[in-house]
């Protein structure tokens, strides 16, 4: 009996020490340097480990800015079911036809209620695509509650090139903010609406699954993607809104960058 209790206690402790991987709002399209038809998947999940998929409600806002012109995309999205290694739940998809210049896609989700923490999460997410190499909008703020404003183009990075961005909250830089970065290890399968069964890499330890960084005194994050792929950058609780429906709210700023290897 004593042994059983010890075993139970050990199991419980082990369960407690399992690292909590980061939530990430995906706004995924396979290729950031593309013109013509772009397909997007909007999924709230844990892309570094093909983890739990959380049900998305219809977003508050979804739009794109190209050459300073804003186009509403909220009515273009259709519900889908996204499957990870652990479960399936509701997200959205859309297609968009892109031409020249930067397309800054912005998703403002409806806050998600995280039961285990009795609080809400809202990850305001930005993805910038560019098919023709004419830079137009990438370095301008979109006027969001909280957002990353890049200092280096997020779609034109070789692995080993440095990416910098300023974190803004209500338009002002946020120094010393906590930032989580994850590699999209399980490639999204656009046809199956699921993550790939196998990861691209095996992290040497949990430190490398969710990497923790800070913005500097000027609110600037500096990060160098070491290899090709999609990298998600999230500033936790950076936004000015701290409450939603009488509960605590973490209003986060997310930007995705893509590092691309040279063709050999």
């Amino acid at each position, binding site marked *: 009996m004593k042994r059983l209790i010890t075993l139970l206690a050990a199991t419980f402790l082990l369960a407690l020490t399992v690292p909590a991987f980061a939530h990430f709002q995906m706004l995924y399209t396979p290729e950031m340097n593309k*013109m*013509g038809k772009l397909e997007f998947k909007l999924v709230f999940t844990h892309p570094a480990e093909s983890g739990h998929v959380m049900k998305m409600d219809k977003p508050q806002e979804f739009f794109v800015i190209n*050459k300073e012109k804003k186009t509403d995309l909220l009515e273009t999205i259709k519900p889908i079911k996204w499957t990870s290694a652990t479960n399936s739940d509701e997200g959205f998809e859309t297609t968009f036809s892109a*031409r*020249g*210049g930067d397309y800054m896609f912005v998703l403002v989700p409806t806050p998600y209620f995280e039961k285990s923490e009795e609080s809400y999460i809202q990850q305001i997410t930005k993805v910038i695509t560019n*098919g*023709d*190499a*004419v*830079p*137009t909008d990438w370095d301008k703020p979109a006027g969001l509650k909280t957002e990353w404003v890049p200092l280096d183009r997020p779609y034109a990075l070789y692995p080993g090139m440095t990416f910098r961005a300023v974190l803004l909250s209500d338009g002002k830089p946020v120094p010393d903010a906590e930032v989580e970065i994850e590699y999209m290890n399980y490639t999204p399968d656009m046809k199956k609406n699921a993550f790939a069964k196998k990861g691209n890499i095996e992290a040497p330890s949990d430190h490398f699954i969710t990497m923790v960084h800070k913005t500097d005194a000027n609110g600037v994050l500096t990060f160098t993607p070491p290899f090709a792929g999609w990298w998600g950058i999230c500033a936790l609780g950076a936004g000015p809104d701290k409450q939603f429906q009488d509960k605590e709210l973490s209003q986060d700023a997310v930007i995705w960058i893509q590092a691309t290897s040279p063709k050999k």
Partner: protein
Amino acid sequence: MKHIRLYLFATLFTLALGVSQAMAHTALCNCFDNGDGTVTCEGGFSDGSSAAGVAVTVVDAGGAELMKGAMDANSQYTFKKPDGKFTVKFTAGEGHEVAVQSDKIVQ
């Protein structure tokens, strides 16, 4: 002698600057099928500067000129899609020319 060296250095430095600028500033042009029998071409430069006023010509497979115009204030040029193969030429001066073949038009 010291002056000559300094002068040479300054000249080389200026030349190097000139060359690197020309390299860093690439002319770009892409064309899109509007699906209504017209094609829109968008021009620009890698430094984000406008292509307004840049000359555009459309030539047929034999090189004969079909249309001639210039990029508008939005760095765009729209024209009626010709029959057969054609090439759009974007001419922003020496070293800044782009040719887009009709089979490279984004649908």
